[in-house]
């Protein structure tokens, strides 16, 4: 039993990171119908910039803040320079643009910083906490709390604030939103900034556990994409549940079946879900207008 609990705890930790990446996907997808394959690079930037800001002498919380702000600026630049000019391009082109952006950011990071693997100290030490025979790192609690806090804030933002509702309106129907006076360009910019900031936060939270380097982004993007798809694209609740499910599933596969094939589990389940429920767990059925 402690074994199961242990797998569950580590699964939830990893799952929380996937959920944060998936939430970032969801925000951008809702505002612009773009699946941003550079989402993983935001996580990488969050970790890397914190590492180098801290090395430059900033205290850790300030370094993390700098990382999140810089990454948000990168997100805005991505929107202004690459996504907005390509408005209305077919899905294949958009996929290539964001993958191009992801390769570009990776290349730039490796030039500006380096190719080494980095970490910074955990926020509240490295002494594992024992729970019912299993253990969990204090940093894992930070990650899990972070994912739920972000989800809660997003929920407040989307349901309780005017601008949040404007984002939802834009997601629903761009032209109609413009007609009622919503500045949809501003909504896009805001969405990219938020999404990048959430990605960077995930990077800051998880780096003490998983370490970071310039090339960690792609794998995270694929897993986050899968998680978002599992929950149903464009649904924040789906992103959270999809991320956690994926993390737990991976941990269980690694623990009980084969650690080599833990990454396969994610994709097998996604194929199965897409075959049985093409819209994901929480996605609405879409009908095409002819």
């Amino acid at each position: 039993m402690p074994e199961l609990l242990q797998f569950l705890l580590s699964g939830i930790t990893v799952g929380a990171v996937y959920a944060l990446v998936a939430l970032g996907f969801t925000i951008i997808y809702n505002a612009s119908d773009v699946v941003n394959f550079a989402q993983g690079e935001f996580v990488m930037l969050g970790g890397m910039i914190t590492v180098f800001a801290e090395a430059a002498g900033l205290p850790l919380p300030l370094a993390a803040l700098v990382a999140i702000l810089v990454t948000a600026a990168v997100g805005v630049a991505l929107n202004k320079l690459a996504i907005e000019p390509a408005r209305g391009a077919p899905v294949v082109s958009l996929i290539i643009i964001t993958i191009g952006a992801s390769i570009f950011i990776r290349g730039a990071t490796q030039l500006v910083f380096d190719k080494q693997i980095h970490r910074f100290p955990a926020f509240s030490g490295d002494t594992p906490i024992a729970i019912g025979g299993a253990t969990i790192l204090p940093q894992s609690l930070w990650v899990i709390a972070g994912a739920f806090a972000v989800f809660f804030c997003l929920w407040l933002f989307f349901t309780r604030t005017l601008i949040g509702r404007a984002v939802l309106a834009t997601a629903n129907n761009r032209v109609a939103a413009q007609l009622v006076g919503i500045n949809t360009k501003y909504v896009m910019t805001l969405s990219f900034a938020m999404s990048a900031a959430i990605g960077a936060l995930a990077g800051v939270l998880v780096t003490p556990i998983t370490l970071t380097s310039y090339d960690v982004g792609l794998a995270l993007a694929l897993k986050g994409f899968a998680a978002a798809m599992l929950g149903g694209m464009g649904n924040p609740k789906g992103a959270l549940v999809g991320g956690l499910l994926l993390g737990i599933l991976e941990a269980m596969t690694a623990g009980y079946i084969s650690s080599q094939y833990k990454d396969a589990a994610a994709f097998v389940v996604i194929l199965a879900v897409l075959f049985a429920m093409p819209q994901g767990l929480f996605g609405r059925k879409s009908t095409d207008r002819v």
Partner: protein
Amino acid sequence: MRLSSKATTLLILAAVIAIAPFFFPSSYYFRVGSLIFVNGVAVTGLVILIGYAGQISLGHAGFAGIGAYACALAPVHLGLHPALAALLGALVSAAIAFLVGRPILRLKGYYLAVASLGFGVLVSMVLANEAKLTGGPDGMAVQELGLRAGLKAIGIDLSNTAFWYAFSGIVLVLGAWLALNLYHSPTGRALRALHGSEVAARTVGIDVAHYKLQAFVLSAVYASVSGSLLALQNKFITPDVAGFMHSIEMVTMAVLGGAGSVLGAILGAAILTTLPQVLTVFQEYEQLMLGLVMMLVMIFMREGLLPSIARRIRGRAE
């Protein structure tokens, strides 16, 4: 006499392949050329899938992996000649594409992208993890095709690089010929119709699922042949051939040059294959430049390089 666009395309392609070697200063250029043709074969398959039928796949490297490892494994374990092994790889790829294609192709857009991506990742994972069979991430050796020795026996003595340049060049021209024929066939018209609008195509009686599956299987065979060629030419293969980045490379080549045209897609393959070779001087900047090129072409030339340039030239002429 006015040549059809099909004949023009094939003539240009064959002429470039035949004439280029006269300008090659060293055998290294034959090597780059044959790599372009190998990629060109896979990309021609994607023209059928993306350009004609309008479907995306981010997992076609999976089929290249099957083709490559068929050439590596079948001669050792089944005692097949490498050429037959390549054929076996193509058949296996077609069979898998047929089985996987039906459920996958019901999906659209990003859902199709992630499903095909998942398939590709699974193939590369099996190749990397079944180390007893495939040598794992370190890769494995591939037997000699033996055709070059055969040619030598009848008096045609080619260097290794020149042979692979010629051989993959011929395969590419054949592949392009098939793809161009398909374009003007009833199947090609059905594919283009469902690309325009699936509902409209269904309304006029086109079996949409059937034709999409056909395009998927065909493009899988192209990818498999490309993988086989790569394995036979390098005499060595690693699971990277099936990796996600290879899938992305293939799609980028096709779309960069112009997924709607065979020649354009092959041009895309030529550019993206040569770019890293040119950039080795600036190795530090390679990723930066690659990402930049991908973004710029897609933003400013949405139909891809060749169609965009062709339109501009035509616009000036009128």
